[in-house]
């Protein structure tokens, strides 16, 4: 089981097929893990929204993949230790910036996550894209 600096961490990984209907399942799992922190419902709601939002970036109509298939699964790992962290990854490269011609009817798809999560990063290698978010619990 993975650990996060100092104490054993609980980790849950959910992999969903490329189906927007399944994002709700990810939100439910994320909210359930967030509630285990004992923090207030505002925090739980933020984690729930962030988990779903990150998935939507891979699965939504506005998701722009650079030359990779559009039906790839998305894996979400939620880890609860000294931090609550969520890593959302999918094979292939996904545009990680909002471009005028790739937005969703005028809404910048990445704007909400970037505005909401302080500890937020996107990493890419030759085979996958990962969105990582982290919330301190102390």
């Amino acid at each position: 089981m993975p650990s996060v600096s100092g104490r054993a961490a609980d980790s849950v990984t959910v992999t969903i097929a490329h189906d927007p209907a399944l994002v709700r399942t990810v939100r439910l799992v994320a909210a359930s893990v967030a509630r285990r922190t004992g923090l207030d419902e505002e925090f739980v709601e933020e984690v729930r929204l962030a988990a779903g939002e990150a998935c939507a970036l891979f699965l939504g109509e506005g998701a722009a993949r650079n030359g990779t298939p559009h039906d790839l699964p998305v894996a979400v790992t939620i880890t609860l230790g000294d931090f609550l962290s969520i890593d959302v990854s999918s094979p292939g490269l996904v545009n990680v910036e909002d471009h005028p011609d790739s937005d969703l009817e005028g809404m910048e798809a990445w704007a909400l996550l970037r505005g909401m999560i302080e500890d937020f990063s996107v990493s890419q290698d030759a085979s996958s894209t990962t969105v990582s978010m982290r919330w301190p619990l102390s």
Partner: protein
Amino acid sequence: MDLSLETRHEDGNTIIEVGGEIDVYTAPRLRDKITELVGEGHYNLVIDMEKVDFLDSTGLGVLVGGLKKVRAHDGSMRLICNQERLLKIFRITGLAKVFTIHGSQAEALAES
């Protein structure tokens, strides 16, 4: 909870009462409803989000798209939302300045 959409016409306004979750899966249904109404010539829309449990950026995109559609016909789109967790999303994305957001249907309709 799935998305529910109820529409009625009142004093020149078309009110869409939205309930449930507006997300990457359900938002296209709201977009289709707005497109349908605008296509029928209803350009003054009031979107009542009082019963909305969840809203993500896809839903916000649909609302922005709807606003553009009605403005193209010199129409209007007013939102009804009094839930702090949803209002926070509008503030974070800067859309609180783009939309006219009211606390109740009575308030929104009084302004028409």
